[in-house]
């Protein structure tokens, strides 16, 4: 009974934490929307006919592909700041952009020392809208959400000509130590002939000041975006590394609570389903497995196998009281699994690899899944049946080819542009597309 009450209190605290961590319940504040990585927005489109509202193209230039190139940050973030709905996204040309969600006009841009490949995270700290974004120049920036002014920056490693580009991951904001903490993994490497190193390190900073509270080296390979949950009253950070490990760290001190080595490289981030019966972590691997883990112990609850690798982070949603997990795979399918039993509910075959993560929203009150496939289409599927509702042709890749599994592909995001629901997709053709529902319209 005590244990049950403890779990119930944990879930309540957890929900409060999640509500507290975002400025507005319709905002998409970071990678996969929130610190749970649920990818689940409650935004409701009034009609299933989504049409292009506007697009934003920061540069008319095209570029040469190189292995690992990406165009936009892995996902855009949509938030309300100063009475305006603003979209934040990083770009391959070392610029970070803030765009008006209503009409796609540029509000401000910030120039970094390298590419912004990772999603930013938005939070209101002491009532000030702030955007936190890591850059491949080894620095984490905190920018004013309204003006783009740099509030603080934290350099994870001082410059040296033997250093490689940093590989950071999308940060999250968590409440711990009575503060708002920024959790940001960064991979740094030096190819100096002596004393060379490669380290995937998680940095925990005071979000208000940029002061480092602690850091922990977890791997020699890059780390993926962390997620956060309160498990049995204990605030935990869950993070995966490219060398196949999943870690649960105490949010207060970074101490490893459990560690699990999985089957192959992990290029997806964990997501968490808070549940009164015990919170669950979902993580997928390049071996093609989707794992459901017990958040408290790291024990595998169930495993499901796709026909090919999975790089997409699982989106988690609840429909009619049942929880579902949505992932895309290199076997071209988008899958829906029962989050509790692991039973496959449906799969939808697209024309090519599905690498990026799914976004959940509602159309006329029904849950739908937005997903991008490398067949150059953006799909909208029924969350319960997997039937196609809508698709948008994004045009051919502008690169001659891409190395499989190397590029960071952006994921769709859902938010509000004033009172209008919008779907935002940063595309590989260098354009940021926004879609909205038009009564009686067509795509």
């Amino acid at each position, binding site marked *: 009974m005590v244990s049950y009450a403890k779990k119930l209190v944990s879930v309540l605290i957890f929900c409060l934490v999640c509500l507290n961590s975002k400025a507005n319940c319709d905002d998409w504040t970071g990678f996969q929307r929130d610190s749970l990585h649920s990818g689940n927005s409650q935004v409701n489109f009034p009609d299933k006919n989504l049409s292009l509202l506007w697009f934003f193209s920061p540069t008319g230039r095209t570029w040469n592909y190189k292995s690992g190139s990406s165009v936009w940050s892995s996902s855009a973030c949509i938030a309300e700041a100063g009475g305006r709905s603003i979209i934040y996204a990083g770009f391959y040309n070392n610029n970070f952009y803030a765009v008006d969600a209503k009409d796609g006009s540029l509000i401000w841009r910030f120039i970094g020392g390298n590419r912004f490949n990772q999603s930013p995270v938005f939070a209101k700290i002491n009532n000030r809208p702030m955007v936190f974004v890591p850059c491949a120049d080894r620095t984490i920036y905190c920018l004013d959400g309204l003006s783009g002014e740099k509030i603080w920056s934290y350099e994870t490693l001082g410059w040296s000509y033997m250093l490689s580009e940093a590989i950071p991951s999308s940060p999250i904001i968590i409440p711990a130590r009575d503060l708002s903490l920024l959790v940001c993994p960064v991979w740094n490497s030096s*190819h100096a002939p002596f004393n060379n190193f490669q380290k995937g390190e998680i940095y925990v900073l005071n979000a208000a000041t940029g002061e480092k509270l602690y850091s922990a080296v977890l791997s020699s390979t890059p780390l993926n975006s962390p997620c956060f949950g309160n498990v049995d009253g204990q605030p935990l950070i869950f993070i995966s590394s490219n060398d196949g490990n999943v870690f649960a760290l105490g949010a207060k001190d970074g101490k490893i609570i459990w560690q699990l*080595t999985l089957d192959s490289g992990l290029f997806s981030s964990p997501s968490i389903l808070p549940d009164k019966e015990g919170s669950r972590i979902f993580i997928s691997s390049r*071996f093609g497995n989707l794992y459901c883990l017990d958040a408290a112990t790291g024990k595998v609850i169930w495993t499901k196998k*796709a026909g*090919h*690798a999975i790089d997409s982070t699982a989106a988690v949603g609840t429909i009619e009281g049942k929880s579902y997990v949505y992932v895309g795979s290199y076997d071209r399918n988008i899958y829906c699994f029962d989050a509790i039993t692991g039973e496959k509910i449906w799969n939808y075959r697209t024309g090519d690899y599905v690498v990026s993560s799914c976004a959940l929203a509602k159309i006329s009150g029904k849950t739908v899944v937005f997903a991008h496939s490398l067949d150059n289409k953006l799909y909208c599927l029924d969350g319960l049946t997997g039937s196609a509702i809508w698709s948008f042709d994004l045009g051919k890749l502008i690169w001659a080819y891409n190395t499989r599994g190397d590029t960071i592909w952006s994921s769709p995001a859902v938010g509000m542009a004033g009172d209008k629901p919008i779907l935002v997709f940063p595309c590989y053709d260098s354009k940021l597309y926004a879609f909205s529902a038009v009564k009686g319209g067509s795509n």
Partner: protein
Amino acid sequence: MFESLKWKLVERPILPIGNTYLDAFVFLVFFALLFCAGIALKSKWGIRLRPFVQAAAFIFFIFIVHRCFCALRGTIFSFQDIGKNDLNVFNGLFIFVPLIAFTLMFGRIFCGWLCPLGSMQETFFRLPFIKKFMIEPAPGLKRLRLFLLIIIFSVAVFLLLKFKPKTFFFVQNIAAFWGLVTVILAGGLVLNQEADLKLKKLRYFLLFGWLVIISLGIFVTDPWCALFGNEIDYSSLIAFFAVLASAVIVPMAWCRYLCPLGSSLSLLTKFSQVKVKRKKGSVISKKEAKNICYIQALEEKGLDKSSCLTCKRCVDAGASDIEES
């Protein structure tokens, strides 16, 4: 259609190296299999032990290695990661180094004793009715062989069009095209037996092209990937079946003409310490040579050392000897 297929018995590292997905067990078993093959090659019971080593390797590669066993592509990619990703470098080299070491010692022992794709093709050769079909076909059967090759080619083209592998016309899915090339080359041999030696040399040009493509960072596939990589990749799958089907008409067509790993290892056979060498003065008929040697490295008077898989069948038949440098 493929999402429920699951054939790997091991899905997690058995002996994780440094708490990562890398599995020391794979390295140890691979080393042990090469070692057993090396011992068996030199022992007088080698020919009897070979099926056991092949069976163990078949089970190990297909059902036990839980990740892609990427002996050549993985190695080249890992070289590109030196100074950037030590884990990847180690991952590539810990398979490649023993492979090179054992090839320098015993020749193409991996191809002849361990490679499951080779074993599968060889199994077809061993079937009595297929063997007759391959070694001395009557004129009618010869036409039937060509007809079958045309059917295999047509089916492979149809499947490619039907499933449209990713970036269909691009080089990443080289496996799909190599499957078709295998069938075409096999057809060339059916039409003209004497073309075999010329066609065999093609593999070095293809290997060069393959290396250039990989060095550019392109993730090329090959028929291996269909089974050993635990991936349902259409191009690999279609190529895999095209290679197997070609092996029914021409023995070990893939190993003879195209396999990039086999071609690269055959370049090292010149330096190997243990070699199969023809007995001085021994002459055998063409038909007998074909009957003994699966890959037809055995000739009437000589032996094509770069093609020899050190299977020891010719030694057992009294046509050759094992020689140590």
